[in-house]
């Protein structure tokens, strides 16, 4: 879930409770306010009625509410003295303008006592009050309206304001996603301190990473490189020793074995160096390479080996296929794939190379079980323990394909191992 939506959810949930609570508090406050104001009005009426009664005693005869909003009843002095002003809520049958028949309506009632020309009276004054359920309904509608309005505003702010604020962050994130070691470090211009801090932290991290990678690369490069001369000396010395002759067959055999081991080391070393160089992007002289030509030449180089292993290599071309790349790397890809297909083959097996407009497909017979694709291209992955190969052939293929962004896919179909190299 995006940050924007997340903040929207938090805000709408908390706003819901805030506005709900506010509505309840507001309702009670308003209701109290209304009552106070009605009470003041009643008090006012009371004074006017008492004042009027002194001038016009007929008022004192209004014994019920039938004619007006007050009723007067004579009481004893003792009762009058004991009475204090009381306000109460009560229900009365009343007929409003919009009512057909009288209905019970909430009213506020003031009960008080007064003295007029030595007589004591009880006065009750009423005033119709606001209907509670109407008020609640109205208030609920208003609160809901306010809530929806606020949400709409928040969405607006989120989308237009926050998105603007977060823009540097998303731009930074996108750059970071595309970042590969060796590229320029991701960078955005922003005034926001947090983003600047983030940028600094990430840059430091990337720098450290790049340095480690660089050191590692250099180490492999240097190690392989420094091994070259001692390996040269060892091979050459043993070659000279064999050349000298006068060896017991057993001694010669041992020396031959040692030479083989050293040669394996040399191959391993060369492959590691090649890998390092591919990853260092040290092959720069790209030109248009015809894969038809490269395949032809590589098949030619492999002819004798394939013959010896009783493997038939056939090539079918439906189109001319070219790519812009380094020639020796093109040879490395094709010849490694072909060698792989020949060496991991069976007696009387076949290797079929198909060159189409967009891809080279190499199919070969071999073991009846598919190989796991994740392990296939990893370094030093070997399927058979008895091979003398370096286990780097397909890793080299993969590295070159990655360098030029050619997708390479392995499939196992119809009992054939199939490598497809797609050229853009």
């Amino acid at each position, binding site marked *: 879930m995006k940050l924007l939506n997340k903040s929207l959810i938090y805000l709408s949930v908390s706003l819901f409770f805030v506005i709900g609570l506010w509505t309840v508090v507001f309702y009670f406050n308003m209701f109290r306010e209304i009552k106070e104001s009605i009470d003041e009005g009643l008090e006012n009426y009371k004074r006017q009625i008492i004042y009027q009664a002194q001038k016009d005693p007929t008022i004192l005869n209004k014994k019920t509410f039938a004619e007006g909003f007050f009723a007067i009843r004579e009481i004893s002095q003792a009762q009058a003295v004991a009475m204090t002003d009381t306000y109460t809520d009560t229900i009365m049958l009343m007929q409003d303008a919009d009512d057909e028949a009288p209905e019970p309506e909430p009213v506020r009632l003031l009960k008080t006592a007064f003295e007029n020309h030595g007589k004591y009276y009880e006065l009750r004054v009423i005033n119709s009050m606001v209907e509670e359920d109407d008020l609640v309904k109205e208030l609920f509608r208003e609160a809901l309206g306010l809530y929806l309005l606020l949400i709409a505003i928040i969405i607006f702010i989120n989308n237009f304001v926050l998105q603007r604020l977060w823009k540097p962050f998303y731009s930074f994130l996108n750059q970071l996603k595309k970042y590969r070691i060796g590229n320029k470090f991701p960078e955005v211009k922003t005034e926001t301190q947090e983003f600047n801090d983030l940028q600094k932290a990430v840059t430091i991290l990337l720098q450290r990473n790049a340095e480690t990678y660089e050191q590692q690369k250099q180490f492999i490069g240097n190690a392989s*490189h*420094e091994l*070259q*001369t001692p*390996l*040269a*000396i060892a*091979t*050459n*010395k043993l*070659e*000279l020793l*064999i*050349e000298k002759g006068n*060896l017991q*067959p057993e001694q*010669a*055999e041992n*020396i*031959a074995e040692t*030479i*083989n081991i050293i*040669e394996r080391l*040399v*191959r391993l070393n*060369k*492959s590691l*160096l090649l890998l390092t160089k591919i990853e260092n992007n*040290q*092959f720069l*002289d790209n030109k248009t390479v015809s894969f038809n030509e490269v395949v032809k030449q590589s098949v030619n*180089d*492999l002819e*004798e*080996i394939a*013959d*010896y*292993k009783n493997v038939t290599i056939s090539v079918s071309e439906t189109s001319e296929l070219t790519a812009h790349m380094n020639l020796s790397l093109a*040879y*490395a890809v094709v*010849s*490694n794939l072909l*060698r*792989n297909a020949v*060496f991991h083959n069976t007696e009387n097996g076949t290797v079929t190379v198909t060159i189409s407009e967009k891809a080279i497909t190499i199919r070969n017979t071999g073991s009846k079980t598919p190989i796991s694709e994740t392990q296939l291209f990893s370094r030093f992955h070997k399927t058979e323990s008895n*091979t*003398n*190969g*370096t286990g*780097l*052939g397909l890793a*080299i293929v993969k590295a070159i394909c990655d360098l030029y962004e050619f997708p390479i896919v392995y499939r196992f179909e119809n009992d054939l191992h199939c490598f497809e190299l797609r050229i853009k």
Partner: protein
Amino acid sequence: MKILIVEDEPALLKTLVDSLTKEYFVIETANDFYSAEEKMELYDYDCILLDIMLPNGSGLQLLEQLKKAGKQGNVIIISAKDSLDDKLKGLELGADDYLTKPFHIAELNARIKAVIRRNQLDGKNTIEIANTVLDLKERTFVVNNTIVPLNRKEFDILNYFLLNKNRLVTKTALAEHVWGDNTDQADNYDFIYYQIKNLRKKLTEAKAEIEIEAVYGIGYKLTEQ
């Protein structure tokens, strides 16, 4: 034939001297920049084997000086650096060949001879041994004045053996020379045996007075009968 070897690693220098002495070359050595500079200024050599990374300086610098002095050196660069840049720069500066360490003795031998032959004034481009003639220009093989047809690889194999007469040629060295450098997965070189068998058959049928003999299962040696 006088050869100067410029190499700072004593053990390698010694094996190179040992190996090239067998070819009856006159050999001089230099193990740092200054001694190499001095020798190159004072004498002329038929071939100079030049290491690039030397104490006190670079082999490429020596090459430049040699070129400025107008000396034809037949320089073969021997370097642990398999960098294309160095290779191109070296060849641009007038080096005749570039060999990356580690190399087989047979390969170095073949390269030296090829370089010397290429720069010989008579322009003769044939190798003559016993009753055989290998013409590198026409790519033909003649025994007793009759042409023996060889396919491309048989010709390359024979050429390699002739350049390394009486010397051990290991199967690996042969495979790398004839079948290219990408032999990463060649788990065995048994297939070479069949190639050699065919070649031997052709040599015997043509009554060539040279033969290819196996050496302890690790390689072969071409000798005159």
